């Protein structure tokens, strides 16, 4: 890996860390296109539980990983919402980069014709 390419990777990673760590706190908290469609027709209480009506999300079940320390893009135990979201974002970027780069490195095409 050349030094120039190393700088490009570092720069790209820094942008991703800033987006996930800082800008993420300015993201819209409205449900996304899928979720909004799924909820349409039902009524919800303050906790987001369905109280009535008919909608796609009616039979939705809890997530198996709901107890993950990073569940719902926050770090469990950190109550400052901006800090919690930001740190979860930073963790996610680093973990995704690690798994992605590591995985792709393992299956990459080895340089042929070494001899």
């Amino acid at each position, binding site marked *: 890996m050349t030094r120039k390419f190393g700088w490009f990777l570092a720069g790209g990673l820094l942008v*991703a860390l800033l987006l996930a760590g800082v800008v993420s706190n300015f993201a819209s908290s*409205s449900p996304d*296109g899928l979720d*909004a469609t799924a909820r349409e027709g039902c009524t919800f209480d303050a906790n987001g539980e369905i109280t009535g009506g*008919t909608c*796609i999300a009616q039979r939705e079940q809890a997530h*198996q990983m709901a107890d993950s320390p990073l569940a719902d893009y926050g770090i469990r135990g950190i109550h400052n919402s901006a800090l919690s979201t930001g740190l979860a974002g930073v963790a*996610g970027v680093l973990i995704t980069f690690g*798994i992605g780069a590591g995985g*792709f490195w393992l299956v990459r095409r080895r340089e042929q014709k070494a001899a």
Partner: protein
Amino acid sequence: MDAQAMHIANGIVNGPVSAIFVVVAVAVLAVCVVKARADLDDRLAPMAGLVAAFIFAVQMLNFQVLPGVSGHLLGGTLAVILVGPWVGALCVSTVLIVQCLLFADGGLTAIGLNITNMALLGTAAGYLLVAGLLRVLPKNPGGLGVTAFIASVVSVVVASQGFVLEYALGGTTQLSLPWISGTMAGTHVLIGIGEGLIAATTVATVARVRPDLVYALRRFRKPVVLEEAAA
């Protein structure tokens, strides 16, 4: 705290249909791994890791598209342009698996559905559009930006219709399919426009700084005859 759920949750589509799509996703991803190996050299591997990390970051940035409705980038088109279709589908899948297992976003039972829509359908549609558009549009940052924008809009709408298909096959409720299809298409055109702007800015920036790192500029220009011969 915002409890952002951005992908299909458990229980929206029944167990058998969800299981079928797990099988579909695993089978297609296996093909992607085999095909991706030909593309993945010492440089594309870390680049693909960066693309996955970038997509993870930008997926956290929900933007408002209508009152009470937001959207976020899916990333298929962006990945296709920067790292190619096979590696690109694997990048988006990596993001979805990390989100599901660590961030409780997108049901574990629904992982096949989410991968099929966003990583496979979205990426395939993005690839077809990008490959077609780059035959006519200039291969410079501007042309690449326009390509990314158009391909993103189409790709996001196609991905949204993937959900409609899955719901038609195994939805746990019986709501009107035309209504779901229309609502999903309508909001996802708007989300696609947002994604298109982000993807266009990103690929045009990379094309300006390091055009040699843009897969679409290197590989879609001419067939790589040397590689075929060496294989």
